[in-house]
């Protein structure tokens, strides 16, 4: 296990380095002069060049990359062009909001998805199964933007059960969390159902039934334990998906977080912020993949031996 972990960590290093190179390259690939976004549009070319030299943007790009990487490794993600404050500080301020939203939706989506998937598998071909299957497809297929607006219209405007936006009022988290959780719940429920049906059809399950194992133990200790392995991987892969999905959801619900920060930074061409956020997302994706691999090994040690 230790060897496996070390191996995976070593493989992650070049992946992360590659990501940093791509993130850095965005500055050069994006059309337009980034220095021009930092100055008065009436600034002379001499003034623009002066700022370019000040920021080291006149240096060859490999040198710029290494300097930038050095700062990143020291935790310095640069200064936001529009906010005039360290990018790391901006991210630290907004991160708790995104974590609150994504963790809540992750928990809701996971619990509901697994539960519904198990019920659908256990009650195969019943009206429970059909209801869960079709509604799962519905939730999974709905674009987040549309789903969020529909929830606002129904529960916020018409029924007035929940606040529409913001984060300060009680219940403000409900609609944005549901908007992120419901598609996740839909995809998980379908996957869990499929895996459970496969496991329930195995010979050892028939043996367990024949031996008189109680249904609860049969389904949750024996069947789910084996069905959950691919699901566990998907759960961790959902983490970066959730982070990316917050761009739309946080904007619709006026929820302060990294998603909205990214949206604003892209609109304003605030490159240091965009780069910093991309690094965060890339890093979390690599870590999520790593955790997914470790979890898989813990659940099924045969994978490590293979």
């Amino acid at each position, binding site marked *: 296990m230790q060897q496996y972990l070390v191996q995976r960590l070593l493989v992650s290093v070049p992946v992360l380095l590659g990501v940093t190179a791509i993130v850095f390259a965005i500055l050069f690939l994006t*059309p337009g002069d980034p220095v021009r976004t930092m100055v008065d549009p009436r600034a002379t070319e001499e003034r623009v060049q002066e700022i370019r030299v000040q920021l080291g943007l006149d240096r060859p790009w490999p040198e710029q990359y290494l300097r930038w990487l050095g700062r990143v490794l020291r935790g310095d993600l640069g200064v936001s062009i529009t*906010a005039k404050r360290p990018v790391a500080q901006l991210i630290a301020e*907004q991160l708790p909001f995104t974590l609150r939203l994504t963790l809540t939706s992750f928990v809701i989506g996971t619990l509901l998805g697994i539960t519904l998937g198990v019920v659908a598998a256990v009650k195969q071909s019943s009206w429970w199964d*059909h209801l869960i299957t079709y509604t799962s497809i519905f939730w999974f297929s709905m674009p987040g933007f549309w789903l969020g607006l529909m929830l606002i219209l129904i529960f916020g405007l018409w029924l007035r059960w929940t606040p529409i936006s*913001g984060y300060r009022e009680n219940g403000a988290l409900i609609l944005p969390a549901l908007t992120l959780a419901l598609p996740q719940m839909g995809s998980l429920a379908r996957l869990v159902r499929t895996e459970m049906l496969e496991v329930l059809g195995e010979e050892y399950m028939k043996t367990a039934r024949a031996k008189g194992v109680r249904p609860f133990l049969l389904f949750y200790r024996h069947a789910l334990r084996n069905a959950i392995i691919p699901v566990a991987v998907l759960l961790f892969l959902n983490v970066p998906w959730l982070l990316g999905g917050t761009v739309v959801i946080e904007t619709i619900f006026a929820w*302060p977080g990294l998603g909205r920060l990214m949206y604003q930074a892209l609109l304003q061409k605030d490159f240091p912020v965009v780069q910093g956020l991309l690094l965060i997302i890339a890093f979390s994706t690599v870590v999520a993949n790593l955790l997914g691999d470790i979890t898989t090994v813990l659940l099924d040690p045969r994978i490590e031996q293979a």
Partner: protein
Amino acid sequence: MKHYQWLVSLLFVTSLLTACVAPAPATQSGDASGESTGESTRTTLRIGASAMTDVLDAQQSFTGFSVDSIQIAQPLFRLDPDTRELIPDLVERWEFAEDGTSLMVTLPGDARFSNGDPLDAQAFKDAWLRYKTISPYNLDLEMVEEIRVIDDQTAEVLFNVPPAASLPVLITAFGAVWNTAVAEEIGDEAFTIAPVAGGPLMVQDFTAGSDLTLVRNPNYQTNLPLVENQGPLHVETVEVRLIQEEVTLAGELETGAIDLAVNAPQSALERWANNPDIQLYDYLEPGYVGIAMNLQHPYFSDLRVRQAIAKAVDREAIVKVLGATASPQYTFINSAMFAYSPEMDDYARDLHPHDVEAAQALLAEAGWADTDGDGIVELAGEPFMVEFLTSATNTQLHQASQVLQTQLREIGIDLQIVQQDEGFVRDAMSAGDYDIGFDSILWLDPDIFLGVLAGSWRNYPQYDNPEMVEELTAARQIWDPAERTAAYAELQQFWLDEVLEIPLWERRSYVAARSWVQGLHVGPNNRDLYLNDVMIVE
């Protein structure tokens, strides 16, 4: 019933329920001022805004025109919404020299910043010098040669040229008096989110990109003639929330979760115009949205082609699609701008009226003809096909471009609409890497045209005329309003004759407020949200 039929029924019922959101009853849109009629029942005003600055200190910001900064700081002057003349805000008295090369200001003797520091002549001088040093727009004050402190209340500003072109800045948070002593003490970085100034409100809490809580400044006083209450506000707290999504902003106002929506979404205006619970305050934006053609492009270098396009355009049809937020405009300087000339309105309207036949004749005169009968004119075998570059995120511009496409098709021009990121569009058009597109001007002073039609920093038409640059440079230095108006009228006539751009529509923006918000004054644009007399009477 089969299982899938249950699903269909469920979907149908959900759609039906959604569609049955009760429409609001009708009301008329309001004027730009209100009166308080009762006792205040709540002392917190909640504002929803579709944009919010990340930097509250306007002197360090790129976006100092936002609704938040102007509530924290206090400029020397403002603009009268009706006459567009300067009116006092912070100043007690002021006097420009006859030639505009100096300005004497007298501040109230007991003026204080929100933290109690004296807001005197020295503080004013320090603030403007800081602006010259630190602001990304420091060129706005490049004409300030020297600021002399005469006594505690009085300062004299000496200009190397009259500051007519800089007035749009001086009447905003950019030109306001910020407490530079606090900025030096806590550092510029900290001052971006916790600035101190003398405006009606002061910062209590700020979450960048989300919300701002302001509390009443007990030291605030003003000389604004527009308002009854010239001391501290009636409301104690103002909460500003950033709500970018239109549906969300509209929903929050309709449910009463916010009291006021700045930049009211167009999609809700028709609904709110007939809603007695919502008041609409509208104001005209300075500038226009129009067609910019790359004059270095071989097709558009021909004046007859540009004239043909000007005659093919039907502004009425375009503004019909855009709704209440647009009205036709023919001139470069509209009535919301300085140096506006009503005579140029008439001249422009008569010069290129909508006339498809005349447009076709002009193209024919330029050598364009539809030789193959496909509806598109050709010249030397080349069809008149050009790319219309527009922003992918601006729905209004996209709608207008589609109408334009149809209109130009009538005269045989094939417009291929290309949508790109806004930044890409701006850069491409500035570099001349485009055929034809939209130009959007939003500025109070016609000095903007020095950059837009002649300069090197945003000259979408790629027009090069040194003589015109000289005239524009001279016009920016004219102080006498009548003389300035005449100079810009002459320039406008040239621009219209040469069809350097084709103004299409002027923008009208709206502030929407719940009926319980009384005493609100708005205008002449949304940066001027006067909360002095506001009371919440529910």
